[in-house]
């Protein structure tokens, strides 16, 4: 157990260095979510009052779709040169690999949100009526909910025949409670109408339950042959 964090950090540093040099995932994710925002703006008139009501939903759906782009690339990189097989036979704990991948995706998606959220604010002319600081826990917990289960299911879908297609098919049904919590909490905070506490607690519960399950079962998935 004492080797968990050094290996996690080493693997994370490697992933960040790779991403920093190529910027493949980040660029494709940013451009993809920009496209989603623009298409949403054409589909739902941003000047209408009703669009502002559903902005919480639009933001998170855009992030969810963009996160899929990054999540699918997580493990594809390790398939080249049989890196994943090498990892499987090494004595390094499996959870270190999972944590480093999940943290790497967390950083990526957080960066994406930091760039895209202001853009949404501008396009949809949003004002935060409720307590704006409450958006921070919602963002952190919501992003972790997406990337933790997403990284796990990406490791599963990489084993199937239709890799890229499979991930959303597994991830979307299971993340319904998390998505509903994020969307509702964001909507309540933006409109200042009600208390988002229940949704934040539910999101936290989802994070705790799913992260525990991911850590408990990741070795099984990694070694499934």
């Amino acid at each position, binding site marked *: 157990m004492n080797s968990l964090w050094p290996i996690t950090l080493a693997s994370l540093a490697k992933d960040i260095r790779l991403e920093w040099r190529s910027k493949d995932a980040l660029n494709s994710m940013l451009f993809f979510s920009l496209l989603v925002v623009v298409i949403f703006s054409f589909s739902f008139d941003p000047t209408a009052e009703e669009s502002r009501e559903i902005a919480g939903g639009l933001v998170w759906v855009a992030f969810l779709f963009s996160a899929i782009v990054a999540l699918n690339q997580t493990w594809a990189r390790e398939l080249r040169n049989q890196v994943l097989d090498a990892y499987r036979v090494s004595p390094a704990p499996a959870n270190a690999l999972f944590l480093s991948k999940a943290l790497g995706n967390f950083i990526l998606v957080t960066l994406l949100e930091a760039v895209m959220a202001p853009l949404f604010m501008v396009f949809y002319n949003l004002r935060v009526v409720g307590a704006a600081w409450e958006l921070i826990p919602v963002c952190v917990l919501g992003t972790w909910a997406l990337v933790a*289960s997403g990284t796990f299911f990406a490791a*599963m*879908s990489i*084993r*199937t*025949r*239709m890799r890229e297609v*499979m991930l959303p*098919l*597994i991830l*979307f*049904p*299971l993340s*319904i*409670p*998390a998505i*509903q*919590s994020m969307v*509702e909490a964001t909507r309540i905070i933006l409109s200042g109408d*009600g208390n988002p506490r*229940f*949704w934040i607690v*539910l999101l936290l*519960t*989802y994070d705790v*339950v*799913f992260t525990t*399950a991911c850590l408990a*079962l990741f070795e*099984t*998935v990694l070694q*499934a*042959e």
Partner: protein
Amino acid sequence: MKKAFPILAVLTVLLLAYAFYEAMWVAPTERTMGDVQRIFYYHVPSAWTAFILFFVNLVASVAYLIRKNPKADAVALVSAEVGVIFCTVVLVTGPIWARPVWGIWWTWDLRLTLTLVLWLIYVSYLVLRRFSDSAQTPKLAAVLAIFGALDVPLVYFSIWFFRTQHPQPVIGGGGSIDPRMLHILLINWLAFSCFAFLVCWARYRLEMLKRDVEEAEALESLLDTGTSATIAKGKVSLGGGPR
């Protein structure tokens, strides 16, 4: 065991016929809803059967992860397949009843939404099984089944809170039920459970046979290429192995 199957099949058919007769002719007509209420004798037993099968799926999946017994995996697969079918019956009969009674096909009520999400989760489970390679399918599927089970309470709470915020036009349930109706409901449930068990059993035997055949084919082709390689010194035998 093999002799028990036709006996159970005959019993199930008789029971289903009796339950159908009870539901259609013996059961009293509901005062306000009329005859459309009789769909209740199919809707509710299907729901209970589907939920039991999903529970069986979870137990079998956990058993597989602990014991690595391929039989447990076959049980998990079969119960998920049949469970999805029964869940589909629930989702189809519900709106047929709701349209004349509530005036709407669908409402985002707690139980409706939960059933829909459950159906989605198990369809994704079957999709995963369909598209992964056979050797690792059981483990991945068992893991997904556990995640699905963990998800259910969270979905429940999210919809429960959402619904309390947005009251629905009509909420069914509550109130009392005629004892004769309850009696017929339970007969129907028994008949449906027997039917589900029968289908699962048949499907289980089919699945085990399929696996035996696959194993035999793999072994045969292995032996085939092995012998032809030694005899013909690397010459590929065309059409030698089975498809």
